[in-house]
């Protein structure tokens, strides 16, 4: 990293933020209980929120320092010969993600400061006039705007969704290229798409707010931008699918997770389209359909990508490979269970079952046929939990007892495989030089089916 001390500061700031949030469970008044969106006026009135806000400020500081460090490192410290179009797609994904964090988090920090003022100094930034709590009129100056919080919040929270998914896309791309033994299909298109995706993610936030009565012009604008942002996502997914065409695929554990990512993310993405259009959103808003959609993106999407990445880079980090059989049990169990958890939520949501009901919505007649799915979902969720046990065991067992590997166990082409496994201080033994693009697999006429970036032409 370009700034090592900043890197450490970022980590410790994150640590302090996490501790503050955990400690909030043990202080009088308890932890924050206004939901992750912390909508006012509830969040201003409810106890426990102050610690959450203080913790958030530490986390935002950490993310700010980290993203500056990532961007500067990517721009300034690329190895000799590593031009922009030779960067692995994962690096591009992290680069765009860093920009999202850098520019989208400060408005939430501003909103957090304003909410803190509302709670501590008694201001009314988000508090409208005439509020009555428990039969008592609230003694505040009023004239605030609760919708203002929602705008500031979603200005972060929508790009945040892309912060979750873009690195996942990057990880999956690396693993697909490695296990298809082919170059990624349309590398440049992927790069331009992800940059455009990052840019567009800043102007779609109010599609979370169609039901707030903000007006049809606003809704029309934000549903248009939302439809536009689906284009680069579909391009990325299509390019990854086309990369599989005609390949002799190695079905390793990381590849299974990466392959599962593609249809799972597609389900998550495509079910988002009706939510992005204001008229169907009136019906679907705040139902289990939203939960299903969102979790298909981040659970079998992002989490599967993270599992794929863990199995793929584990040998690099530890010098040992994770057990393949346990990995496959982990994969198939998780894959089946996670679908049984989230697929019924679409049925429930389409039937009109609302989320955030204290009794799960039992008191509504239209939910009578839908709540039975809760039993299926609960059982699948427990089974999903059980299938993580092989993974946890595998992870710790393999650190000590996995099969030892050399520096490039997957016959990969990108730069990290030039470093020893595990890498020592400074990563590389000698300063690496990059000679070619990141995915030169099965080059015609080459002696082996992979031509690493870090190996020059042999005389």
């Amino acid at each position, binding site marked *: 990293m370009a700034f090592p001390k900043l890197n450490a500061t970022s980590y410790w700031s994150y640590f302090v933020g996490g501790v503050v949030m955990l400690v909030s469970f043990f202080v009088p008044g308890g932890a924050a209980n206004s939901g992750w969106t912390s909508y006012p006026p509830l969040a201003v009135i409810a106890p426990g929120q102050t610690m959450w806000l203080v913790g958030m400020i530490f986390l935002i500081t950490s993310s700010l320092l980290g993203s500056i460090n990532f961007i500067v490192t990517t721009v*300034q410290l690329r190895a000799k010969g590593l031009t922009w179009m030779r960067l692995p797609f994962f690096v591009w994904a992290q680069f765009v993600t860093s920009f999202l964090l850098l520019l989208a988090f400060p408005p939430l920090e501003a909103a957090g400061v304003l909410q803190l003022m509302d709670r501590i100094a008694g201001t009314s930034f988000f508090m409208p006039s005439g509020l009555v709590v428990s039969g008592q009129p609230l003694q505040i100056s009023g004239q605030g705007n609760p919708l203002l919080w929602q705008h500031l919040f979603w200005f972060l929270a929508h790009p945040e969704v892309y912060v979750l998914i873009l690195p996942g896309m990057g990880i999956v791309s690396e693993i697909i290229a490695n296990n298809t033994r082919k170059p990624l299909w349309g590398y440049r298109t992927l790069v331009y798409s992800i940059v455009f995706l990052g840019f567009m993610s800043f102007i779609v936030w109010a599609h979370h707010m169609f039901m707030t009565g903000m007006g049809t012009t606003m809704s029309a604008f934000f549903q248009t931008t939302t439809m536009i942002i689906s284009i680069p996502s579909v391009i990325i997914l299509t390019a990854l699918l086309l990369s599989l065409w005609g390949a002799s695929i190695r079905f390793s554990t990381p590849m299974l997770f990466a392959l599962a990512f593609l249809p799972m993310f597609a389900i998550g993405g495509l079910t988002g389209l009706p939510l992005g259009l204001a008229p169907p959103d009136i019906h679907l808003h705040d139902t289990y359909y939203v939960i299903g959609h969102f979790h298909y993106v981040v659970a079998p999407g992002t989490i599967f990508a993270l599992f794929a990445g863990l199995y793929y880079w584990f040998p690099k980090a530890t010098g040992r490979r994770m057990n393949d059989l346990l990995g496959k049990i982990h994969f198939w169990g998780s894959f089946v269970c996670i679908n049984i958890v989230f697929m019924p939520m679409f049925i429930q949501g389409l039937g009109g079952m609302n989320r955030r009901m204290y009794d799960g919505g039992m008191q509504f007649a239209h939910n009578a046929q839908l709540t039975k799915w809760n039993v299926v979902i609960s059982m699948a969720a427990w089974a999903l939990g059980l299938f993580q046990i092989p993974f946890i065991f595998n992870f710790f067992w393999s650190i000590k007892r996995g099969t030892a590997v050399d520096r490039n166990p997957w016959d990969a082409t990108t730069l990290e495989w030039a470093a020893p496994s595990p890498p020592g201080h400074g990563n590389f033994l000698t300063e690496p030089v990059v000679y070619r693009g990141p995915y030169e697999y099965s080059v015609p006429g080459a002696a082996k089916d992979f031509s690493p970036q870090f190996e020059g032409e042999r005389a």
Partner: protein
Amino acid sequence: MNIPYTVEARPDTGLSNGKLGIWLFLASEVMLFGALFSTYIILRTGSTTWPHGELSVWLGMANTFILIGSSVTMVMAWASLKLNDWGKHRLYLILTFVLAGIFLVNKYFEYADHFARGETPAHNTFLAIYYTLTGLHGLHILGGMIVMAYLIGPGAGLWKRNPGQFTNRIEFTGLYWHFVDLVWIFLFPVLYLL
């Protein structure tokens, strides 16, 4: 192990690491204050009454000139290093620090005066946004002063060991300082005049 481009610029990007870093930081600061100024606009356009003339224009104006002056001395502190004049650099940097201090003292009297009249942040929305914006700006001034204190005191030894890097640090502090000054240039008309 040495990290490259801490002093000299990378040829193809034309930037040193620190300079890119500080510009990225300022970009995020623009988003922070941008969100707060947007808040101001939304709250003001959404309210039925908005107080006018509650703040002392003279105190605000004095602080505007103090900050502009400190920006000039900050540039001089950097230029003196480029001219290899250590004595002048010390003079100008300390002057910048003192001007920043005067700004905060001035601000303190302004706050104290309002509080004495019962005009706390909870009083009305205008005062709420006034205290939030100027308070956050004041924290930025304080942050700048801490960095300057470091560069005047324990950090000054770097000039002997690595004059290039020290000059860079003064330049980046200056970039930050100009930004803080610029925020005030926006705050003054928005809060005191409009």
